[in-house]
């Protein structure tokens, strides 16, 4: 008997209902489901009675690539319904797709992510014809809200239309494999029915391939030689399922669809309104009865206009937003676009999306086998003698000490309780070579807050401690929030954990975040630190790391962009931004050959900055010094110094110059010119220039200041000790007394309200 092919959309209640009714009606011999075939021998584990949503987590790592992916199930997943209903009617239930670690899934982290984005053109055309905003709305309109009659044919027509053209290579491989299962099952079932539940896009291909002649059961692919990986059940959450929240998710708004699945569209619409209003009122937002009436009237009107028997998801949302938001929005409504909520979304809209998302979190049955991470951590802790409570001091120059430190740091970044670092290096350039840790046995049981519970959750990050820590660090990089301090923290934690290279996507996120930093000073600090790690650090093994090299490239580009945006007249020297210019120069000098930094572009920016009167003097000075220190042939420092001789800004300009090109200044006739300029200043102008001049010369260390003093003596034809010029004539006691007096005067002034 031929198989019945049900093409579904993942996480669609309408499809789940169809699957349940077809299985109940046919009582098939086999139910074949799109899912990882390597989990087939562990289906009992999957059906232990977990609280949904749960997911099969699969990790994979070999010499070339690392991959982690999830196969999530919730109550209304058609695949889940196929599993449970198939079991209930006594059918043989099988997953028939390639394992999640197979190269065909290399760029997917969610097996049940929407395939529509691969067929965007057709979907766009359909959206235009039905006059809807996007595929989610289209789907609701066609299937979730529409009456259920003839849904099977309509689904087939939809997917045939959307799957218009040949599949990509990855999909073709999966379809060929799935079709082999189908043929074998049909042959084995004899005259009993077979039901095949797969993504709708695969259905046409499977029907075509089901007619081929081979009928033997296919092998389940084994992990290649040298690769490690495995699948474990992890608790999942509606938040992670939600397309508004994540990268590669299925349908949006799982909370809403759960209600739709349980109690139908009218009740789901009411529930949605109720929970939005409750959330808003909890936040002390006024939602009046008149607003609610308006919202309901709008939702009803929209449903009628759009031909829905009951208000659909976006009808309710549109109604609420019309009634509740009485100002201009900064960001388009998230359900008109797709993907993550952008920053700046209206707070009422954020609450609406949260209400749709729901906050359900799955829970595993106590008998579920534990994810690999738990065993991996236990083994690592044993290996380095870290299992027992107590304090440890680790020598980082020793291989064992370093390895133990990395294990503990990995636990730390995973927020596993019971691990605390008391002392240790705080930055890449900190000359501290030992760490001390306090280890406690934080609740060995599985209770909330216990180490075991935390490890199971962290198991979602990866099956080994290294994978898990890498993934946890990757999660901390949010390109939408370019916080330099956080980025620096991630990079340093990565070094401490011994993760020297970040994977492609994480690195891309990191670089985007660096490219979005808005302040020059902090960016300079990060660039200097990273440059230090890249150049010197053998302790953490970060020397010449490609990741840090890429960060350097991005940071240099961003510094140049930000520097050119600095405008404003005379202002005190900003040491932060001078530091950024110095770090950029150092990056070009020290890694210009190995790392992709564009020295030409940098020089061009600096040339423009140094000649632009609208740029603050310190930056102009630094920009001039930049050009001088990199290409001394085509600059004329004497003229530049004379050009900057305004007593109001001279000191700040010099501060910039000295910060970047101290050595060049000492070697060139600039000091003479400066001496001449300062000597010619009238008394008042000198006093104006003095504080900034003092600050500028502070860039020279004492030994160089002595050289300058010697130079000055020589210019005046005097003989004497240069060092004595640098010494204060007064005794330290006198200075201390003066300072105490000043403090007292300040205090009095403050007390009398005079300052």
């Amino acid at each position, binding site marked *: 008997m031929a198989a019945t092919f049900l093409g579904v959309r993942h996480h669609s209640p309408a499809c789940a209902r169809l699957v349940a009714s077809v299985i109940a009606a046919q009582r098939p011999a086999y139910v074949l489901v799109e899912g990882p075939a390597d989990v087939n021998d562990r289906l009992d584990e999957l059906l232990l009675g977990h609280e949904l949503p749960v997911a099969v987590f699969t990790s994979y790592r070999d010499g070339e690539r690392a991959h982690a992916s999830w196969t999530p199930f919730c109550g209304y997943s058609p695949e889940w319904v196929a599993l449970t209903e198939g079991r209930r009617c006594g059918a043989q239930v099988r997953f028939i797709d390639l394992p999640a670690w197979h190269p065909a899934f290399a760029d997917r982290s969610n097996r049940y992510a929407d395939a529509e984005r691969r067929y965007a053109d057709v979907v766009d055309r359909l959206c235009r014809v039905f*006059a*809807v*905003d996007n595929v989610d*709305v289209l789907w609701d309109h066609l299937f979730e809200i529409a009456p259920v009659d003839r849904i099977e044919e309509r689904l087939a027509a939809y997917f045939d239309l959307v799957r218009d053209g040949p599949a990509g290579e990855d999909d073709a491989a999966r379809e060929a494999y799935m079709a082999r299962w189908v043929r074998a099952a049909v042959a084995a079932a004899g005259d009993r029915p077979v039901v095949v539940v797969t993504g709708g896009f695969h259905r046409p291909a499977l029907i075509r391939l089901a007619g081929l002649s081979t009928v033997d059961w296919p092998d389940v692919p084994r992990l290649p030689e040298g690769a490690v990986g495995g699948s474990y059940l992890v608790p999942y959450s509606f938040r992670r399922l939600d397309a508004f929240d994540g990268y590669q998710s299925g349908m949006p708004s799982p909370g809403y669809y759960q209600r739709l699945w349980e109690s139908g569209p009218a009740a789901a619409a009411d529930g949605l309104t109720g929970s939005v209003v409750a959330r808003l009122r909890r936040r002390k937002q006024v939602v009046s009865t*008149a607003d609610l009436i*308006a919202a309901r*009237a*709008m939702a009803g*009107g*929209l449903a*009628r*206009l*759009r031909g829905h028997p009951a208000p659909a998801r*976006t009808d309710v949302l*549109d109604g609420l937003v*019309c*009634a509740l*938001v*009485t*100002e*201009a*929005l900064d960001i*388009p*409504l998230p359900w*008109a*676009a797709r993907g993550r909520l952008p920053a700046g979304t209206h707070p009422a809209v954020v609450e609406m999306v949260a209400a749709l998302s729901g906050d359900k979190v799955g829970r595993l049955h106590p008998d579920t086998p534990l994810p690999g991470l738990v065993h991996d951590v236990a083994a690592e802790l044993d290996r380095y003698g870290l299992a027992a409570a107590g304090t440890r001091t680790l020598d980082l120059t020793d291989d064992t000490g370093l390895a133990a430190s990395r294990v503990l740091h990995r636990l730390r970044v995973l927020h596993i309780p019971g691990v605390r670092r008391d002392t240790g290096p705080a930055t890449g350039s900190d000359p501290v070579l030992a760490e001390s840790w306090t280890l406690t046995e934080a609740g060995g049981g599985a209770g909330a807050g216990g180490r075991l519970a935390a490890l199971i959750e962290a198991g979602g990050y990866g099956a080994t401690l290294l994978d898990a820590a890498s993934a946890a660090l990757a999660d901390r990089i949010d*390109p939408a929030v*370019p916080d330099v301090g956080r980025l620096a923290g991630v990079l340093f934690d990565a070094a401490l954990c011994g993760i020297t290279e970040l994977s492609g996507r994480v690195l891309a996120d990191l670089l*985007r975040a660096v*490219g*979005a930093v*808005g302040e020059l000073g902090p960016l300079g600090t990060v660039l200097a630190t990273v440059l230090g790690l890249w150049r010197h650090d053998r302790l953490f093994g970060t020397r010449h790391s490609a990741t840090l090299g890429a960060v350097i490239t991005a940071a240099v580009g*961003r510094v*140049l*962009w930000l520097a*050119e*945006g600095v*405008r404003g007249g005379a202002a005190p020297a900003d040491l932060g931004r001078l530091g950024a210019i110095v770090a950029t120069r150092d990056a070009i000098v020290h890694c210009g050959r190995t790392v992709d930094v564009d020295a030409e*572009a940098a020089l*061009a*920016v600096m040339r*423009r900055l140094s000649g632009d009167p*609208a740029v603050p003097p310190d930056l102009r000075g630094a920009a001039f010094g930049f050009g001088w220190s990199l290409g001394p042939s085509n600059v004329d420092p004497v003229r530049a110094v004379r050009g900057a001789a305004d007593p109001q800004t001279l000191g700040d300009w010099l501060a910039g110059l000295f910060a970047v090109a101290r050595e060049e200044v000492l070697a060139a006739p600039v000091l003479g010119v400066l001496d001449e300029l300062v000597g010619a200043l009238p008394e008042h102008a000198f006093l104006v220039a003095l504080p900034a001049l003092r600050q500028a010369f502070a860039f020279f260390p004492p030994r160089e200041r002595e050289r300058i003093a010697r130079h000055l003596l020589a210019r005046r034809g005097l003989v004497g000790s240069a060092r004595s010029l640098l010494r204060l004539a007064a005794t330290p006691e006198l200075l201390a007394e003066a300072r105490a007096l000043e403090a007292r005067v300040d205090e009095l002034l403050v007390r009398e309200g005079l300052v």
Partner: protein
Amino acid sequence: MAGDDIQRPPAELRYADELARLRDADRGDRPPGWALSLDAARRFIVGDEAAGSSRKFVGDPSLIDRALVTLATSRGLMLVGEPGTAKSLLSELLAAAVSGDSTLTIQGGAATTEDQIKYSWNYALLVAEGPSTRSLVPAPMLRGMAAGKTVRFEEITRCPLEVQDSLLSLLSDRVLAIPELTGADGMVFARDGFNVIATANTRDRGVNEMSAALKRRFNFETVFPIADFGTELNLVEAEARALLERSGVTVPPRRDVLEVLVTTFRELRTGLTERGDPMDRLSSVMSTAEAVSVAHAVGLRGWFLRRDAGSPADIVACLAGTAAKDSGDDLARLRRYLEQQVTWRKGAHWKAFHDARHLLPG
């Protein structure tokens, strides 16, 4: 009256054929006082090839749904957004679809008075006959209420607050009192089909100064710049081509040049580059409408100065006037953009764009 010499006929004349076709085929329920059903009105605006109706507004279809349903309720419709996002066009289309008449329009401004909104008098007749319906000169609001039609109020936030608030009783009680007249003439009750579409742009005073009472009587719809690059490019191309044809230019604009233009406008508008780096936004308006006018100017320069279709260098020459206007800061931002954010892109036209940066004045 639709003579060919009218510079810009109103929507109901421009699309008279489409409206007639939709009206004839319209089987849906019409809200009281409406010229079309909601569904037909929607198809008039978002387009429907089968019904012979073109797409007239590029934006989320759900926006049109919400706008139409709002107009069928007792709340007015407030379209807000950046200048140049086609708010006025949308309001005109909505009025034409709902009432078949988009000419009942009040243009808001600092000098708008209640007379221009409600009614005024023909003073010769007033002096001769006293107050009467003959000497009354109805303004758009009064006419719309009496006839049950949609009234458009453009740039409502540019009116003084007290003038804005004169709408309060009209919108809630749906009645306009004319105290000078006696008897039944003294009260004009709004007929079915009357509603108000107001527009406001977020660059002027914004809607924040509007009274809460008036805000409550409107549903707000924000009209956004076009989100999709391809859609915006197509729109700019089509509009620029039409404008150039009217100006006697026989070569169509070059697509690669328009790509540079539209990309530049989008990036300067959003403050984000294609690859996602934040940069400075210009303070002046970089709307699609402005992009069309620059594309038009580029085509004109190319054709009348050199007899070609316009080059990336022409964009630079035209940008200073549109984008920077008289703001030195914007000019500096623009220069920085041309210096630093153009070089990393691939393509000869981007290179030409970069090479022409010296054409910026100053």
